């Protein structure tokens, strides 16, 4: 009766393609806030707060150098989280876009997989823009923010990170009936991750169990990966990459099944 549904890549691609078509119309207006936000953090915390913690910086980096790569990861988290919560909910409940799509050969499971892919794509697009800006800013202010050519791997990594947070966001979306409940997701999940995943200070210096708890959360590993790729990675980064892949793979099919049951009576 309840067999596990595996999305078809073709159907998922069609849903991704729909989102691309619409994004191409509105990208200018939707890009701007996503771009400005990390820059505000960089200016306020990196330059403002950073001025008070200059001596020695963190791990031999200035404070602004320390937080810049982490903001790449959190930016991907925010982009994918908004996409998979508010945007997905509106398409599901208000615009009934998914109801229309699933009367075609594209199935409910393909729709959700397509949305994962799209959220990842959006994260990567914004992240690449922000990364380019970090490079330019580093040159402009004479304080290189991205120091390693390994940084070319950051955009594809942001795609994966975006998919991971899309899976998490879609899981929450698949369980709720009312759009107001997203406030809980952002306040209790997204914001704590943003603050305690090693973007602004090394979590390792906290007493137990904070570092141990952080290890089990997704943004911590995303920040590690981005920071290592920005500065030249150690082999340890592979642990973070594997963690992200395993976590994403383990969760990915759960929202697909729940959403299918919501779309098909």
């Amino acid at each position, binding site marked *: 009766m309840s067999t596990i549904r595996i999305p078809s890549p073709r159907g998922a691609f069609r849903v991704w393609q729909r989102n691309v078509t619409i994004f191409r119309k509105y990208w200018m207006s939707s890009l701007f806030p996503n771009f400005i936000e990390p820059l505000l953090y960089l200016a306020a915390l990196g330059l403002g707060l950073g001025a008070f913690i200059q001596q020695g910086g963190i791990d031999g980096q200035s404070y602004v150098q320390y937080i810049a790569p982490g903001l790449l990861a959190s930016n991907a988290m925010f982009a994918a989280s908004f996409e998979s919560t508010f945007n997905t909910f509106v398409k599901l409940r208000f615009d009934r876009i998914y109801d*229309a799509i699933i009367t075609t*050969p594209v199935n409910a499971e393909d729709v959700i997989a397509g949305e994962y892919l799209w959220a990842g794509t959006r994260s990567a697009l914004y992240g690449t823009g922000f990364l380019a800006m970090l490079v330019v800013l580093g040159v402009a202010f004479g304080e290189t923010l991205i120091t390693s050519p390994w940084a070319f791997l950051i955009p594809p990594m942001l795609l994966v990170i975006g998919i991971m947070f899309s899976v998490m966001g879609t899981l929450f979306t698949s369980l709720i009936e009312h759009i107001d409940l997203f406030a809980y997701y952002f306040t209790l999940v997204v914001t704590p991750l943003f603050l305690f995943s090693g973007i602004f200070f090394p979590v390792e210096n906290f007493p137990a169990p904070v570092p141990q708890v952080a290890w089990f959360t997704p943004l911590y590993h995303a920040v590690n990966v981005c920071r290592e790729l920005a500065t030249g990675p150690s082999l340890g980064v592979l642990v973070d990459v594997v963690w992200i892949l395993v976590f994403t793979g383990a969760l990915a099919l759960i929202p697909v099944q729940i959403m299918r049951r919501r779309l098909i009576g």
Partner: protein
Amino acid sequence: MNTEMETSTGTVSGESTLVGRGLRKSYGDFEAVKGVDFQVSGGECFGFLGPNGAGKTTTMKMIYGAVIQTGGELEVAGLDVRDHEREIKRRIGVVPQEDNLDEELRVRENLLIYGRYYDLPRKVILRRADELLDFMQLSEKVDARVEQLSGGMKRRLLIARALINDPELVVLDEPTTGLDPQARHLVWDRLRALTAEGKTLVLTTHYMEEAARLCDRLVIMEGGLIIAGGTPKELVEEHVSPQVLEVRASPEDLEVLLPIVEDASDAVERTGEEAVLAYTADADALAERIRGSGVKLENTVYRQAGLEDVFLRLTGRSLIE
């Protein structure tokens, strides 16, 4: 049943395109559809007539896979819907009850994006989109925003969208509900053009006029069951006398009149405190008897019996409440 299938998208007239046997759907303790049987032939326009909550939409959704049946059999083009989800959806068109057009896309784009869901080649999509917009009389609105369209235009765009894959069977759930008479007539006209092309249409409605005008055959649903079926003419002939006299009078006068009317007509339905419907084969004779009684009538309407009367006779209720 004849399971021999046509080879192309063309529909061979007379073959069963849609078959339901003992079809059931329940949600927990609530049984929305309680075991219905129907058989729709290729090229036919088949209607499900009934009031809201009769189980019409649930039946439609089972056909296009948005609701999974609890029991019974349901075959589209000879394929069991449970095992051939994608294949069936590829071959049918769906006009849902509520408008779910993509509001972020313009009129023509709605068709282009929808066509991609069927993996149609871009050239084919472009050609069909223009043909369909022309067919549904939307050519002047190709670049309009969906939100700027009137209710009737949105319905027509939904129908155009349902045709982008050149389906052999089109399922329409209340295609004209909420439309003004002009818009409704335009939709009827287009649907008749589709049947003339040989497409099979299955539609739900609670307008007996719609069912009578469009459907070759129809079933009447009520409370999850099919309570009657046939051609519109057969249904009227079988269940009601051909002529109806609507008699209105004060409740006291009606009491006096009722025995006379009951005696002189085949059937009587009391539709309110001050009104009765009398079914008869000879309305003149009935009118004569009523005049002879000397009771002062407020209003009498004489008309031909229709599907509304069939429904009223079968259930004691009117279709639209």
